[in-house]
């Protein structure tokens, strides 16, 4: 058998395995836990449904890339308020396709978590050593100017002009060449996604990694779990093959905020509180395009290189953004020659976005009768909508401050483009409906949230299920609510702590 990562071509029959700890999911949560446990000398099996990708496997065509790397082909949406949301299906999970943004959650946010959710050891001071360790391991550092590219630097100019704070985004990259292709996967192998960082380190420390295995059930008796079962799945299809069973002293679910509740609900485990799958939260985002007199060469530069945390306490964060043109062009106005005119402005454009905390907007995840895809329901609260509108307004303000000659807001009911800030003021006076926006939310939280009291949450602050002694969760589902900023680094810090806690107990 391959000593590295076991892949689809190697499964020829049903099989069983036994280990100390089985970790389900190799995204930022699962990979960190697996590494910590393997390093502590535990016998670890890391199970991942998606395949591992080589740079040659990355599609440069955004549509086909999405269909290969994302669950439900990248077309997953919520019901209630319709919003697109993407979860990866690959070794490395979301870290393979994300923009590598690594930000510590602000102190006030973590204090809020502790106060509201009965947590005692999750202040910024408690998490700082874990944040630091992850940052050191992954080489996380602010994006240097030489890979910012004009569209990121224009954002800095805009913030300076308006007196808003701004900073280069800290990212988990080594040797980024500014290809702006993070969404498709990093051909330069610069992004330190967990497949190329924590997973190899876990293997080096003795972990076994099985890919193309879909875990379908957690095996439980009484208040303990004893393993997982599932089927082999052919990459890029839903075709199920051989069966497997892995027995373990401890099970860690890190299948992501959408998939972990589905597994628990299907297995009838850890849900005496009825909280599994509840409290679903997102960071919905709005984006606008500014057009500048000079060329911005927008495809060059870090995918997301600059941010402003000026308004984080007001509930939103501003960032630069780039994505495959075919993906973001969905928001551009027009049809026929008008659409072509909009698209022809892209070489002079920058795209910036606002992501909002939206703590009032909640939803839920439910297992479907068939298959593993979740049924998602979520509704944007009207007060949170006003925060998104405020975020949009700030983006427009920033664009004009940086010298944009027109801004395309991409919102139904607004003009297709603004030629001046004065024209754009109507954003603030107009009443909007949630359906006026093309929303997307790729940061998801809280469906198995941590809480000091087992009646109101699924896990304690170390990730251990209140009801099931040897079952842990280590994905963004455990965040009690939004971390106010991009979640990956906070999840990794929590996962490191969870891994160490398990190592001390097994």
């Amino acid at each position: 058998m391959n000593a590295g990562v076991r892949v689809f071509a190697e499964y020829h029959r049903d099989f069983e395995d036994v280990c100390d700890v089985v970790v389900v999911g190799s995204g930022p949560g699962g990979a960190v836990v697996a590494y910590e446990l393997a390093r502590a000398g535990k016998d670890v099996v890391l199970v991942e449904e998606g395949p591992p990708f080589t740079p040659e496997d990355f599609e440069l065509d955004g549509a086909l890339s999405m269909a290969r790397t994302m669950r439900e082909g990248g077309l997953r949406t919520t019901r209630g308020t319709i919003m697109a949301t993407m979860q990866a299906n690959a070794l490395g999970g979301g870290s393979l396709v994300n923009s590598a943004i690594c930000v510590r959650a602000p102190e006030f946010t973590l204090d809020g978590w502790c106060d509201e959710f009965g947590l005692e050891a999750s202040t910024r001071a408690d998490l700082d050593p874990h944040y630091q360790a992850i940052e050191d391991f992954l080489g996380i550092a602010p994006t240097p100017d030489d890979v910012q590219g004009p569209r990121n630097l224009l954002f800095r100019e805009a913030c300076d002009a308006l007196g808003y704070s701004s900073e280069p985004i800290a990212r988990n990259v080594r040797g980024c060449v500014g290809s702006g292709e993070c969404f498709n996967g990093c051909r330069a192998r610069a992004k330190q996604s967990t497949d190329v960082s924590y997973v190899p380190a876990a293997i080096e420390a003795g972990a076994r990694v099985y890919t193309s295995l879909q875990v379908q059930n957690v095996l439980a008796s009484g208040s303990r779990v004893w393993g997982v079962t599932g089927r082999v799945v052919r990459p890029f299809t839903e075709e199920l093959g051989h069966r497997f069973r892995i027995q373990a002293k401890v099970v860690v679910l890190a299948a992501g905020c959408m998939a972990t509740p589905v597994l628990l609900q299907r297995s009838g485990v850890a849900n005496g509180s009825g909280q599994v799958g509840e409290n679903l939260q997102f960071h919905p985002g709005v984006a606008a395009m500014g057009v500048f007199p000079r060329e911005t060469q927008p495809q060059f530069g870090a995918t997301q290189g600059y941010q402003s945390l000026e308004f984080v306490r007001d509930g939103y964060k501003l960032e630069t953004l780039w994505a495959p043109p075919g993906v973001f062009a969905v928001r551009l106005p027009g049809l026929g020659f008008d659409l072509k005119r909009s698209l022809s402005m892209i070489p002079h454009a920058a795209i910036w976005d606002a992501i909002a905390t939206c703590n009032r907007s909640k939803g839920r995840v439910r297992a479907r009768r068939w298959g593993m895809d979740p049924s998602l329901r979520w509704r944007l609260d009207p007060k949170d909508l006003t925060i998104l509108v405020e975020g949009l307004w700030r983006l427009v303000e920033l664009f004009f401050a940086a010298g944009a000659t027109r801004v395309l807001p991409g919102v139904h009911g607004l003009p297709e483009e603004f030629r001046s800030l004065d024209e754009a003021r109507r954003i603030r006076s107009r009443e909007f409906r949630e359906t006026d926006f093309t929303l997307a939310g790729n940061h998801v939280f809280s469906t198995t949230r941590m809480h000091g009291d087992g009646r109101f949450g699924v896990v304690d602050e170390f990730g251990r299920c209140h009801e099931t002694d040897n079952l842990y969760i280590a994905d963004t589902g455990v965040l009690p609510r939004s971390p106010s900023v991009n979640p990956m680094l906070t999840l990794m810090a929590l996962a490191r702590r969870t891994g160490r806690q398990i190592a001390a107990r097994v």
Partner: protein
Amino acid sequence: MLGWIVVVALAGLGFRRFSLGYPARPVGASTLGAREIHTVRIAGRTIYPEGGAIAASADRAGLALHADRFVGAQTGKNRILMRLLLVAIEHATLVFPAPGPRGWRRFTALEPDQRLAYLDAWRHSELPARRLVFVSLRAILTMGYFANPEVLRSLGLAPREIPRVVTEADLLWPAVGEHPQSIRFTRGDLTPPGDARAPLGPTGTIHPDYR
């Protein structure tokens, strides 16, 4: 008797509307049927006509075959939804007729300016669900448009070549679908850590697939 005549007449009309007069499925298509490909092609010509600010048209950019590949790359449920979307666009003229004479004809049978007006009505509709259908259709076509090398080159957006870096991960697994025996790298191939790499820029060599 009269009832039967009406039923047979309606069935005939339905058959004609839904099945007749479509060109054969183009060579290379494997997922969408002839009718669906035709709908994509005509929608493509309406949304991305020949000429204008970007020269390439939908036909030249190969949107129909790209849509076929995109739908083919999706899992079961999405394939059904996308095909339903195409049926909706083609036949919703019965519910939302296009302006002008015989606006209830199927979308692909309308006159070019009727098609434009018909799609524009979807785009500006006050019904969010109708707007969503339009946005989804345009998304499928736009993703195809931006997959085309000529379009990307004309906007200076063609991907650049990036030198292959070999890391530990490249020793651990093969390309998707392959057996580990096909891993072609050894420790000796590893790129030394800290090897300086120049940021990409407009003077970089265009990726071979986009030249």
